[in-house]
C-alpha cells in the first residue's frame, strides 16, 4: 500500500518526501478534528450525567 503510494508520487526524491510528509500531516489532522471527536462520543468515561432513560 505505502510502496504503491510512493511509486505514484510525482517528482524527484525530495519532492516525494515532502508530499509524503504533507499527506501524513493531513491524515493526522483529519483524525484529530473529525474522526476522533466522533469516536470519542462512545467512550464510557465521558458519560457523566444522569438521565431518565
Amino acid at each position: 500500500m505505502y510502496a504503491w503510494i510512493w511509486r505514484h508520487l510525482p517528482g524527484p526524491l525530495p519532492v516525494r518526501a515532502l508530499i509524503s510528509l504533507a499527506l501524513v500531516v493531513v491524515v493526522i489532522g483529519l483524525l484529530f478534528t473529525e474522526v476522533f471527536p466522533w469516536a470519542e462520543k462512545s467512550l464510557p468515561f465521558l458519560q457523566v450525567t444522569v438521565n431518565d432513560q
Partner: protein
Amino acid sequence: MRGAVRGFGELLITAGVVVLLFVAYELAWTNYEADRQTHRVTDTLREQWAHPRVTGPGDIGSSKFVKGKGFAFLHIPALGRHWSSPVVQGVSLPDLARGVGHYPETAGPGEVGNFAVAGHRATNGEPFAYLDKVHKGDYVVAETQTKWFTYVVDRTKIVSPSAFWVLDPVPGHPEVAPTQRLLTLTTCNPRWASYQRLIVFGHLVASRDKSAGPPIVLHRSLAKGNA
C-alpha cells in the same frame, strides 16, 4: 500473494498506529483543548463582568443562561487550593469540554431548588477527576457576577446512571416544592468507566455580595494568583 500479505500487514500496522494516536488524542489532546477553551470561557466571563454591556430593561438576565456560555465559577478548595472552573450552561459533550456544565432544567446558583452541575472525571479537562476526595463538610463556592454562594457538602452517593432523581428540586421527592437551596454535582464512577455516577449533595449556608470579598473558605485559595 506476497503483495497481499504485505498489504494486510501494513493495514494492521496502520490500525495500530491509529489506535495509539487515539489514545494520545484522548489522554493529552482533549485536556489541552479543554484547558484552552476553559481559559477562553474564563477570560470572556471575567471580561463581561468587568465591563458589563449597557443593557436595556429586561435584558439583565438574558446573558446569564445561554447554552454553551459560561455564567458562573465553581471553587472547590477540597480539590486543590486553586481549583476553579467556569460553569457553562448545558451538559452536552461540547459544553462539558469548556468547564463544568449546568443542567438546564435545574435551579441557578443560589436559587431555591437544586443547582445541579456535571463535569468530566477523565479526559477533556477532567475538572471532577478527584471528586471522590470531596466529603461531607467540605465547601463548594459558586461565584456569580454579583454574589458568592457558599454550599456545604451534606453527603456523597454512588448511584446508577439512570438516577435522574438526584436532579429533583428536592432530590428523591419530585412532587415536593423546594424550600431549600441545594447543590448537586455529578460525574462518572469509577473514574474510567460509566456504569455508575458519583453524586455530591450540598446545601447553601451563606451568600454574600461580591463587593464584600470572597468567603473565608476561599481566602487560602484566592490569596495567590487564581487566574
